[in-house]
């Protein structure tokens, strides 16, 4: 069924290190992953884009602060503005926040320690392109590995985001000091999401959990539906 495999771009920045895992996981879940280089000023024909984890540009200044100026990010910004699906994982989440495509910012963990272990997450809403295979309230086990995953938004912004249901995932127990234990957020239009945990590291029971596949397969489903819908139109 390769013909129905949606093309999903995976952007590699200098310092990305989960791009190949994301590529592997997307392919395993029925997508046709397409590598995108950070210096590419235009995206090929894609149904979705994944910004993978890593330490783009050495995390200099602030995590994600430099990557957002890369040519590929300008193209991703335009892609998102037209309603394109964009998922940022870990460093990808940090980049999307710094780029202003997602609300809030990721700060050093309150403990100042790098966290690297499985966490339990609660799915706050399942009516997004990224969580459609989950149930609302469902708990997922997915690993985190980050030093700067403490999501922060001022009180008034957090209230707005909560009212607009933009909080998609929360840690079931405190993980890094994030306000409201927020682990993943979506933009107002619902086509851009970021999360600190790594679904691409949890797509096979051999890896300890396959719950990450629910997130990535939701994206693959939505991307495929969109391709089929536009082909039928």
């Amino acid at each position: 069924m390769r013909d129905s495999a949606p093309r999903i771009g995976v952007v590699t920045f200098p310092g990305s290190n989960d791009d190949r895992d994301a590529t592997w996981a997307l392919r395993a879940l029925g997508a046709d992953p397409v590598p995108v280089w950070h210096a590419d000023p235009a995206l090929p024909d894609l149904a979705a884009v994944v910004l993978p984890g890593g330490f783009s540009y050495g995390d200099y200044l602030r995590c994600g602060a430099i990557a957002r100026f890369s040519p590929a990010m300008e193209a991703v910004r335009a892609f998102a503005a037209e309603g394109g699906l964009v998922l940022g994982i870990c460093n990808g989440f940090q980049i999307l926040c710094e780029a202003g495509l997602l609300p809030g910012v990721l700060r050093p963990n309150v403990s100042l320690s790098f966290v690297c272990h499985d966490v339990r997450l609660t799915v706050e809403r399942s009516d997004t392109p990224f969580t459609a295979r989950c149930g609302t309230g469902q708990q997922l086990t997915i690993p985190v590995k980050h030093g700067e995953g403490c999501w922060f938004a001022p009180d008034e912004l957090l209230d707005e985001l909560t009212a607009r249901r933009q909080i998609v995932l929360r840690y079931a127990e405190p993980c890094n000091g994030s306000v409201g234990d927020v682990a993943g957020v979506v933009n107002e239009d619902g086509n851009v999401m970021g999360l600190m945990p790594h679904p691409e590291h949890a797509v096979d029971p051999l890896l300890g959990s396959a719950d990450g596949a629910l997130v990535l397969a939701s994206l693959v489903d939505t991307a495929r539906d969109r391709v089929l819908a536009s082909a039928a139109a």
Partner: protein
Amino acid sequence: MRATVLVRPKQGILDPQGEAVETSLRQLGFAIGGARVGRVVDLELEGDDPAAVRAELERMCEQLLANPLIESYEIELPTP
């Protein structure tokens, strides 16, 4: 013209790095009431008009050097 930009964690924003420094200084026997850790950016700029340079620095801070959600900044220009 040389300029210095000081970027600080905003007031009220938790600064775990500052807290770690504070704890360590106390362990060294220093009596301190608090520590906050920010960032210093020294810049060499074209142009001699302080007002124009300051305006340009403000744009740099807004666009890159500071994240307005969590950081405040202060621009220091040489006194004429």
